[in-house]
């Protein structure tokens, strides 16, 4: 139980760190068209060619897989611990909806990740589907892939709306990961709760608003 929960916490925290880097890179997209294209494409080329990033990418894939598998195992175990629920359960009076539904939120985020990987990772890294051209500087035109995807209002809606469950998952996940790993400083935990809220807010808002900005560019 401890080992499993610790794996979920450690991989979760790594994914939290990854999201900061991801959002920083995404913020390039709000710049004026041509500046954004140049910067975004050269940035993604640098990432793809770096051996260090290659290792980090594998750690990232492994983190997602482990986070999901162990969450599933723990959830199955938890269900066994409470085979029958209550006819009436007013859990909203003693805890947040978010904390009670991390599994549901997680599955929603996972669905998002699958679509997101199919949209970008599969096309750019695996070369599946429609081919990706080069920009004027000879870099793979990742910007065009992003830009054209977010001309479709359904994708904009999907990408923006699903940042709500992501934000909620991060808000509870970040603070409880620290507690799972044994952080029990009273004042520190109060600060951590605020940090989690701010972090989750920035992530959800940041990732959610960029597709809308790109759509209206």
């Amino acid at each position, binding site marked *: 139980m401890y080992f499993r929960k610790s794996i979920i916490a450690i991989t979760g925290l790594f994914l939290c760190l990854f999201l900061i880097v991801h959002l920083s890179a995404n913020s390039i997209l709000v710049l004026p068209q041509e500046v954004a294209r140049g910067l975004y494409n050269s940035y993604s080329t640098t990432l793809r060619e770096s051996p260090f990033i290659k290792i980090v990418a594998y750690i990232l894939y492994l983190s997602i897989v482990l986070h999901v598998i162990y969450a599933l195992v723990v959830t199955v175990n938890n269900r066994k611990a409470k085979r029958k629920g209550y006819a*009436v359960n007013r*859990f909203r*009076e*003693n805890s947040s909806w978010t904390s009670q539904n991390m599994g549901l939120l997680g599955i929603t985020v996972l669905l998002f990740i699958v679509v997101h990987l199919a949209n970008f990772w599969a096309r750019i890294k695996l070369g599946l589907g429609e081919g990706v051209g080069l920009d004027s500087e000879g870099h793979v035109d990742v910007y065009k892939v992003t830009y054209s995807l977010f001309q479709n209002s359904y994708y904009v809606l999907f990408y923006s709306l699903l940042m709500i469950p992501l934000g909620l998952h991060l808000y509870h996940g970040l603070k409880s990961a620290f507690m*799972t790993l*044994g952080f029990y400083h009273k004042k520190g935990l109060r600060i951590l709760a605020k940090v989690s809220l701010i972090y989750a807010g920035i992530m959800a808002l940041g990732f959610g608003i960029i597709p809308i900005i790109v759509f209206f560019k």
Partner: protein
Amino acid sequence: MKVIFKIWRQENTNTKGNFQSYEVDELTEDMSFLEALDHLNEVLVTKNEKTIAYEYDCREGICGQCGVFINGRAHGPHDNMTTCQLHMRSFRDGETIVVEPWRASAFPIVKDLVVDRSSFDNIIEQGAYISAKTGTAPEANSILVRKEIVDKAMDAAACIGCGACVATCKNSSAALFTSAKINHLNSLPQGKQEASKRVLEMTKQMELEGFGSCTFTGACEVECPEGISIINIAEMNARRTKAKWIG
């Protein structure tokens, strides 16, 4: 005052239970919840029907026997309270009150609202004590302990083992109970000698008993009659990691 009790009836662990409704009249707002159940049982006796099984002992909020799930909350609608301290004035006249036993695989139902909490005893047996012979009570100042440590240990020691934490937890986790017992003794000088063994064996037993894992929903600390904080669980996790890797 009149209420409708919708109560879980189950003959024994192996039979299937179901809800039965009882309209109970002649109650007063000043009656405790248990007195209202007593009254219902008296009525059932006069009708020659089977009485409802529920547990209680002290009826003053310190023994932890009277745990039941009332209208979707452990120990009823108020935070940090035992069932015996709940009064009928907390309900509306004519209200339907749903009463269920604690639900957890580690707490099998014995009969009606009574569950078997032996799994808690099994955890206790793995180290919620010190094995040194202490003799008679020593002079209080012979072992000096810092005030904030005493306070922390006593806050954890307040746990009465009622099981509300397990009952309310969506995973039926016993983390709050176990952490309270561990932190109580591991904080104090008398408990230090067996600190590592205690935390490792008690947490291991907690898993063996079939309790779920802690997700930090915080529901337990709201329902705990003693208001024991979930920070205890984080501290137990830290103690466990230290015991496991450092010793």
